[in-house]
């Protein structure tokens, strides 16, 4: 059969622009770069502890995007393909820096956090709207907690809760099963939650 194994083309808000660039209008690269530089830059900042690593990640990601754009078959959204490249660059940097890819058990997460004591009280901060709670200090606290997560958990939390991808999309980007994504996400959220509870209790 002629089209056996070939996936259909996915049309999204970038398709037209991508086709033009692939067909030789390379001067349009600025438009594509401008659409994604803030997103990928923030992904880099969230994934890396220091700004220079984040900038390396962003630069390497865009170099790869434009180097391999001609081979992009448009079988997924461009955004997902771009983040898959960013995720792969990120994990390469983490391996180079010898960041441990350890597994997080619930005991690891809750040990030393006084969290084995169960409370039946809903803390006051939970009842406040997220918009009212969010400020520079809280975002630094969340950043501190995600920095302390092993990279293989951090990347799932960042892609799901901060970059807004679905479980299926993250599983495709990271070549993980959907159930693995769900387990990692849950543990990563619990880990961050412990930090927030400590922050609000202090």
């Amino acid at each position, binding site marked *: 059969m002629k089209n056996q194994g070939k996936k259909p083309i996915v049309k999204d808000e970038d398709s037209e622009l991508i086709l033009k660039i692939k067909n030789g209008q*390379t*001067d349009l*690269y*600025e438009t594509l*770069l401008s659409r994604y*530089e*803030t*997103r990928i*830059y*923030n992904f880099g*900042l*969230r994934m890396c502890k220091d700004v220079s690593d984040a*900038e390396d990640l*962003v*630069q390497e990601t*865009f*170099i790869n995007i*434009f*180097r391999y754009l001609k081979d992009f078959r448009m079988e997924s959204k461009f955004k997902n393909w771009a983040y898959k490249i960013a995720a792969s660059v990120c994990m390469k940097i983490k391996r180079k820096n010898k960041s441990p890819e350890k597994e997080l058990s619930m005991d690891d997460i809750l040990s030393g956090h006084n969290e084995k004591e*169960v*409370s*039946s*009280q*809903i*803390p006051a*901060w*939970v009842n406040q709207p*997220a*918009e009212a*709670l*969010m400020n520079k200090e*809280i*975002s630094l606290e*969340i*950043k501190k907690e995600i920095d302390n997560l092993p990279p293989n958990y951090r990347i799932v*939390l960042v892609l799901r*809760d*901060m970059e*807004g991808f679905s*479980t299926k999309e993250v599983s495709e980007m990271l070549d993980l099963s959907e159930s693995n994504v*769900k387990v990692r*996400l*849950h543990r990563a*959220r*619990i880990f*961050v*939650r412990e930090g*927030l*509870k400590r922050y609000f209790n202090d």
Partner: protein
Amino acid sequence: MTDNQQYSNHCIQMFEVYSRYLDGELDKNQKKEVEEHLETCNECKACFMTLKKTKELCTKMPRVKAPDNFTSKLHSTIKDILNCK
């Protein structure tokens, strides 16, 4: 097994699916089970609510703009790669 142990085990079982509940990834029966449990267990309700707010705060993390000197360097690197004139 005492009633208390059974109760704890059920809480742990529920605890494992709270994120999936928040993400709308449970089927109708599982969803109902979580909701009924949260109605009757104050400890789990407190635990669930803190997790829910944590997810909400993560989704609301603000984005920052990349510094101008970084973006101009990035644009020129990509321009070189593409040999644009």
